[in-house]
C-alpha cells in the first residue's frame, strides 16, 4: 500500500458517519402531532427490541396511559421505570462497554430531572387513584432526587413541594403541609395557588407544552445541551360548570430543571475521549503525510502506526447519550380555588388553539372537608 492510498482510506474513515438515533424521538413527534395511538404502537414495537431503554419507553407509555386516564396502566408503567431509574447497579460489562464505546449503549436510567419527573408522575397518578400514601411517596421522592449532589442543591421545583404539601394535607399532617406550601410559595411567588393562605378545595395541575430536547454539542458530540420549547397558551382557563373561576399560573419550568444541575462525572470521561479522538486523528494523518519522507525501512511502520491511530480515533465514541424523555411538559401550571361542596364539571380550556390531551370535562366531587384534585395536559 502506498502512503497516498493510506491517506485516502484515512480521509474516508474521518468522514462524518451517519448514526442511528436511538431513543423515542419519533414517538415524541407522533405525540405532539396529535397521534398518540401511532406513538404508542411505535413505543411498544421498539421497547421489545431495546431492553436497555426499557425505563425510557415505560415513561413515555406512562404519559400516554395517563392522558387516556388508564390510571392502573400508567401507574405500572411509571413504577416499572422507577425501579430501573433508581437502582444502583454494580459495575458490569454494560458499564464498561459504555465507557469504552458509545455512552448510549448503557441502560437508560435518566438524568436527575427525569427521575424527579418520574416520581412526580407517580404522585400525580396516585392522587388520581386515591392512593394518598404513594402520592406522598412520589412527591417526596421528586423533592429528594432534585435535591442532593453534595447538598449543594435544594429542590427548586415548586410543583413537587406544592404537591407534597397537598399529599400531607390529605393525610392529615398540617405541620408538614405548611412547610411544603411555604417552600413552594418561596420558589413560585407569582403563582397564586402556592400562597400560604390559599387552602381552596380544588387543586388543578396543568402540564403545558413540549419538554426540553436533549442534543449533542462539541466537535465529537461529547457534550449535551437542552433545547427549550417555551411556547404556551396565553391563558389556561379553569371552568366549573361552564363558568370561569380563574386561570392556572406557571409554577415550574422543566427546561430549567434539566439545565440547572451542574455537570456529570461522566462528562469528564467523554471530554477525555473527545481529546483522544482529535489527537489520534491528527497524529494518524500526520504520520501518513510523513510516511513518504521517512527512510524506506521505517515507511511501513509509520503507515501502520498512522492507520492504527486513525482507526482508534474512528472507533472510540465520545458522543454523549442524548436519549431523553420526549413527552415531558415544558412548564407546570397550578390553580387552587374554592367551590361549593358537591358534584361539579371541571374543564381546562387553553387559549390560542391549544388542545387538551386528557378528557375534556372531568366530573369531580368536592368534599365537605379536604380538597379535590384535577390533572390535565395541554398540547400545541
Amino acid at each position, binding site marked *: 500500500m502506498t502512503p497516498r492510498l493510506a491517506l485516502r482510506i484515512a480521509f474516508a474513515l474521518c468522514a462524518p458517519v451517519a448514526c442511528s438515533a436511538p431513543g423515542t424521538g419519533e414517538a415524541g413527534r407522533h405525540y405532539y402531532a396529535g397521534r398518540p395511538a401511532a406513538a404508542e404502537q411505535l413505543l411498544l414495537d421498539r421497547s421489545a427490541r431495546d431492553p436497555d431503554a426499557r425505563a425510557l419507553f415505560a415513561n413515555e407509555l406512562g404519559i400516554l396511559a395517563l392522558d387516556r386516564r388508564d390510571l392502573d396502566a400508567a401507574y405500572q408503567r411509571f413504577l416499572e421505570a422507577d425501579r430501573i431509574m433508581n437502582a444502583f447497579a454494580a459495575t458490569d460489562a454494560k458499564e464498561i462497554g459504555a465507557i469504552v464505546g458509545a455512552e448510549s449503549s448503557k441502560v437508560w436510567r435518566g438524568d436527575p430531572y427525569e427521575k424527579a419527573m418520574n416520581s412526580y408522575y407517580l404522585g400525580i397518578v396516585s392522587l388520581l387513584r386515591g392512593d394518598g400514601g404513594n402520592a406522598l411517596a412520589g412527591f417526596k421522592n421528586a423533592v*429528594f432526587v432534585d435535591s442532593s449532589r453534595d447538598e449543594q442543591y435544594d429542590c427548586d421545583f415548586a410543583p413537587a413541594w406544592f404537591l407534597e404539601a397537598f399529599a400531607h394535607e390529605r393525610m392529615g399532617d398540617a405541620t408538614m403541609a405548611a412547610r411544603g406550601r411555604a417552600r413552594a410559595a418561596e420558589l413560585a411567588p407569582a403563582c397564586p395557588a402556592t400562597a400560604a393562605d390559599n387552602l381552596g378545595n380544588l387543586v388543578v395541575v396543568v402540564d403545558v407544552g413540549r419538554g426540553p430536547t436533549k442534543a449533542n454539542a462539541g466537535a465529537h458530540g461529547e457534550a449535551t445541551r437542552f433545547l427549550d420549547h417555551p411556547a404556551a397558551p396565553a391563558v389556561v382557563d379553569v371552568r366549573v360548570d361552564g363558568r370561569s373561576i380563574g386561570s392556572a399560573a406557571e409554577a415550574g419550568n422543566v427546561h430549567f430543571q434539566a439545565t440547572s444541575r451542574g455537570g456529570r462525572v461522566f462528562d469528564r470521561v467523554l471530554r477525555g475521549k473527545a481529546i483522544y479522538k482529535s489527537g489520534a486523528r491528527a497524529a494518524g494523518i500526520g504520520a501518513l503525510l510523513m510516511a513518504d519522507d521517512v527512510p524506506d525501512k521505517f515507511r511501513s511502520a509509520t503507515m501502520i502506526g498512522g492507520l492504527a491511530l486513525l482507526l482508534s480515533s474512528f472507533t472510540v465514541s465520545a458522543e454523549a447519550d442524548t436519549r431523553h424523555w420526549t413527552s415531558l411538559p415544558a412548564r407546570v401550571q397550578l390553580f387552587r380555588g374554592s367551590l361549593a361542596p358537591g358534584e361539579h364539571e371541571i374543564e381546562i380550556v387553553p387559549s390560542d388553539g391549544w388542545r387538551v390531551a386528557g378528557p375534556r370535562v372531568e366530573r369531580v366531587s368536592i368534599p365537605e372537608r379536604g380538597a379535590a384534585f384535577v390533572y390535565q395536559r395541554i398540547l400545541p
Partner: protein
Amino acid sequence: MTHLRQALTLLALALGGCGTPMQRVDPDQDDALGGTGIDSADLRATADKMARSILAMDRVFARGTPYVVVQSPENRTRFQIDDSIFVQKIITYLTQNAAGRVQFIDREHWEIIQKERQLKRSGAVSVPVDASGQPNLAAAPLGTDYFLTGVLQAISKSTGRAASDYVQATFRLVDAETGAIVWQDDFDWKKVGASGVIYR
C-alpha cells in the same frame, strides 16, 4: 488466525453466558439489582418480627381470643409500596403461628359480606347449616377488640452519586373501645447504594 477464531468463540461464549434470563432466589436475601428501596427481605423480616412480638404479648390474650382488624400501614417514605402486602404477610404469619389464638376480621370486603348476608336472608341463596343442622346466620358482623395499624417512615440522604435510606416500620395494637395502645413494636433497616461511574 485459528487462535484468533478460538479466542473470539470463547469471548462470545463468555459474553453469552453472562445473561441469566430467570433464576429463583431466596426472598430473604438481598438481590443484586441495587437500589435502597423496600424489598422482600425487609417485608418478611418485618412481618415475622411483628407476628412473634404480638404472640409474646400476654395482655392481648388476657380476655380470650382477641378480634383484630388489620389496617394498611401508612406510607411516609419516598418509596412506592403496595402497603397491603405488609398486612397480608403479618396476617399469614400470625395465622400460621397463633394456632387460632387470634381471630382476624375482614373489613376490606365489607360490601360483599353485607351483600351476601342480604342474599341469604332474602332466600336468594342457600343458608349453610351448623353441626346441629341449624341455619348458620350471625346476628351481626363481628366487631373488633383491636386495630392493628402501622406506619413506614424513613430518613433519606443523597449526594447525587450515592444515597442512604433508613426505614422504620412501626406497628401497634390499639384498643378499639378505649383507644389505648396495648402493644407497639418496630423493625428498622438502613441501606446505602452508589451509582456506577457512567451514571454519575
